[in-house]
């Protein structure tokens, strides 16, 4: 049952991905991407990654996509009410065909690589089995072995904040840069 659900979700995810590429307006792409994210979140859940599924919904769908939407709105790139339309125009040019060929070949290589890995099919874990990403395990890893990257990420996020300010903050006349970073 869950296997069938997986395949359905897989198709949804792929269709969503295709939708991102083919949607006429950026807004349509966002919607499609949202579909893919949801499908993937469910797959994570099915596979036993409950924390990740939650993170997927919260961070991706909740934060990132909203950010996208926000920017699209800000820049007036797509009307909210417009219909979801597909356009194959991006795939028409010669270069796009080349790109398609490359992408297909990459997919093929990915498939071959996966296949040759000869991973055997696995039994479904018992329903009450703990999640593969138990919070405790994750916490131990994050604050144990991976505490260095974890802390580095904090610097990274700080740097990202500064970067975004540098790039996007509107500058009022007569105002000088100093003193604006510490927020």
């Amino acid at each position, binding site marked *: 049952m869950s296997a069938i659900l997986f395949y359905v979700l897989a198709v949804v995810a792929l269709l969503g991905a295709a939708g991102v590429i083919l949607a006429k307006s950026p807004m349509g792409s966002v919607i499609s991407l949202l579909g893919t994210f949801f499908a993937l979140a469910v797959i994570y859940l*099915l596979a036993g990654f409950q924390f990740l599924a939650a993170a997927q919904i919260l961070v991706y769908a909740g934060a990132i996509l909203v950010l996208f939407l926000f920017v699209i709105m800000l820049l007036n790139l797509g009307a909210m009410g417009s219909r979801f339309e597909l356009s194959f125009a991006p795939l028409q040019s010669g270069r796009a065909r080349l790109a398609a060929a490359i992408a297909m070949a990459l997919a093929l290589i990915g498939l071959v690589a996966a296949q040759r890995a000869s991973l*055997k099919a696995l039994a*479904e874990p018992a329903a009450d089995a703990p999640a593969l990403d138990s919070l405790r395990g994750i916490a131990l890893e994050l604050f144990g072995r991976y505490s260095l990257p974890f802390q580095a990420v904090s610097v990274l996020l700080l740097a990202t904040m500064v970067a975004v300010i540098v790039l996007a903050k509107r500058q009022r006349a007569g105002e000088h840069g100093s003193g604006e970073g510490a927020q």
Partner: protein
Amino acid sequence: MNVPTEHLLYLSAGLFALGVLGFMVRRNVIVVLMCVELMLNAANLAFLAAGRQHALEGKDGLQGPIFAIFVITVAAAEAAVGLALIIALYRLKQSAETDAAAEMKG
């Protein structure tokens, strides 16, 4: 979920390839950025699939999810920077197409 890990990886490969394709063919910078997110998601899926596989084989399966968490974090950061850049571009060119950023060449 009784699905072979291979199939999860197939899905991941498909998503990755679509992301790559989209990156190469779309001209709207926002969509291009979304395609990057697709690629990252494909990688995440692969990480989780592998982690699941290793865990079921009795090996350390947590590295996959951990990496995925870092990826999600970084993805957010990248998206923020990316969108800030798009805004900067839009301010100068009133456009969010990659063609607006093709002045330098050769």
